[in-house]
């Protein structure tokens, strides 16, 4: 039990007012997760937030070619919009090619982003099945899942991304300078 819940329980047992734990200004309307559900579209790396439904590479290919390729290229090579495919082994080159395959650490991020922001001209128009399918196809083009892959809320978080271990935290301040004022260098 959390400490806050313990306090609430004690207050209830003692018949005390819980006003200290309530809203100070009484501004705003109480709501519930059910009421706000249409807005809640986050997909976490753990899989939390992923909806029911499933998608296949085959369905994803059809959708990709009609709804994505105009900006991202037929093979995900990037035209108007970002390149999505390839760039493996470029991250140490000094000119990294950052794509879903070479750089993105979590497959769930692709679901979250496609679902909320794609296609660019009509975001949030794909059904969950369509998003899973497009995600499956983009991962397949990168060689991350097979041609027969089916993705859903259980399998997508388990997809191992090639660069999943490629990120570090912030070590700054990492560069120092001396405020020399006379005959410097």
């Amino acid at each position, binding site marked *: 039990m959390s400490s*806050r819940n313990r306090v609430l329980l004690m207050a209830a047992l003692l018949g005390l007012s819980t006003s200290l734990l309530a809203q100070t200004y009484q501004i705003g309307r109480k709501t519930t997760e059910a009421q*706000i559900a249409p807005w809640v579209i986050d997909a976490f790396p753990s899989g939390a937030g992923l909806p029911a439904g499933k998608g296949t590479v085959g369905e994803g290919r059809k959708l990709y070619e009609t709804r994505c390729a105009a900006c991202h290229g037929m093979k995900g090579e990037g035209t108007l919009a970002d390149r999505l495919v390839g760039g493996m082994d470029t991250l*140490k080159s000094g000119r990294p090619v950052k794509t879903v395959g070479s750089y*993105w650490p979590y497959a769930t991020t692709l679901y979250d982003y496609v679902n909320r*922001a794609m296609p660019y001209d009509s975001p949030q128009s794909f059904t969950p099945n369509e998003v899973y399918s497009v995600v499956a196809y983009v991962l397949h083009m990168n060689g991350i899942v097979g041609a027969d892959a089916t993705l859903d809320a259980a399998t997508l978080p388990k997809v191992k991304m090639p660069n999943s271990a490629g990120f570090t935290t912030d070590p*700054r301040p990492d560069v120092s*300078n001396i405020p020399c004022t006379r005959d*410097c*260098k």
Partner: protein
Amino acid sequence: MTTTSDGSRRRFLRQTAAIGATFGGVVATRDALAQESPLVVPPWTKTPGLPLSEGNYGMPSPFEKNVVRRGRKDYRMPGSGSIMTPHGNLRGTITPSGLVFERSHGGVPEVDPAQHRLVIHGLVRQPLIFTMDDIVRFPSVSKIHFLECSGNTSQGWMNRPATVQLSHGLLSSCEWTGVMLSTILDEAGVAPNASWLIAEGADSAGLNRSIPIAKCLEDTMLVYAQNGEALRPENGYPLRLLLPGWEGNMSIKWVRRLRLASEPAMTRWETAMYTESMPDGTARQFTFVMEAKSVITDPAPERPLRAHGFMEIRGIAWSGNGRIKRVDVSTDGGRNWRQAELHDPVLNRALTRFTLPWQWKGEPALIMSRAMDETGYVQPTHRQLVAVRGTANRYHYNAIQPWQIAGDGKVTNVFA
């Protein structure tokens, strides 16, 4: 503007064109000025001026028409680009609202404030939904802070010359008015295991970022006004987050939802974008703070030197880690430095203006400024920065900016 005042304005411009041309030369000497004709009473004194601007939103003088936001024009999707603040034409520490930089990823939504809602949910005691009227009722605060895209000055990584507008223009500073985020979070009651807040905008990108709860409780604001008036649409109207000193992308515009969570969401913007590629192939993630930086804005490529003799070197300095403590200026390529004067107010995580008097006799010179903040951090050189971080990075470049002054007063961007 009415037809009549438009006509007056054209006449006004025509009449003054000849007078304006007198000052068009680059380097004017005292002798040249002495040869000017005797003063005349100008036409704008000898005729009544324009009618009052009632009903108009006031605009700058037509002579300032060049002072506008500009982009590099290399973005490919409409609505997904950036346009920069013209620091090479500004003088103060507050950016006029119409010149605040703009970086968007799904265009600028036309949000109706009457229909806009803010939801707080997730790991809270009580999920809440607010209208704009609700939010404005909360105790309010006004604070001056800079806002800077982490991609500001990124041309430095590539040694790509630019004007001060195109190099340092993803930086602006406003007085922001709103409510402390902590005030509203207290209303919902943050659970003890909530360590991140995931903020989301109402734009077509649904732009989402994960923010450590400590920053939310320390100084993050929910703002509805900048420089005393409602936020501009491109800056988040009617409501945005403002995270003082942290990379601009996190100050979510058009904010509609705040979810308390025990883990970051690992959104596209904090994984694929706004992460920093290092020479060994790894990338730094969650690099939030904008470290100390400064730049000379006069002279600058937009402001060549026009006269020999006295001039004042002027610039701005700022740090995401607190107040600016000192700014040094060199006019000999970094060999010797003099301490510049810092002008009040010197505020936390805000632009600070500095000046240094200088005599320029027409010699080529390499000038630069170096900021120190109250943590003791010293702005590094390009060489020091690149030695640690390489050149594959596109974010958080904060090195000293050298300007090369030529004998004719022209100023160009070079890297030392």
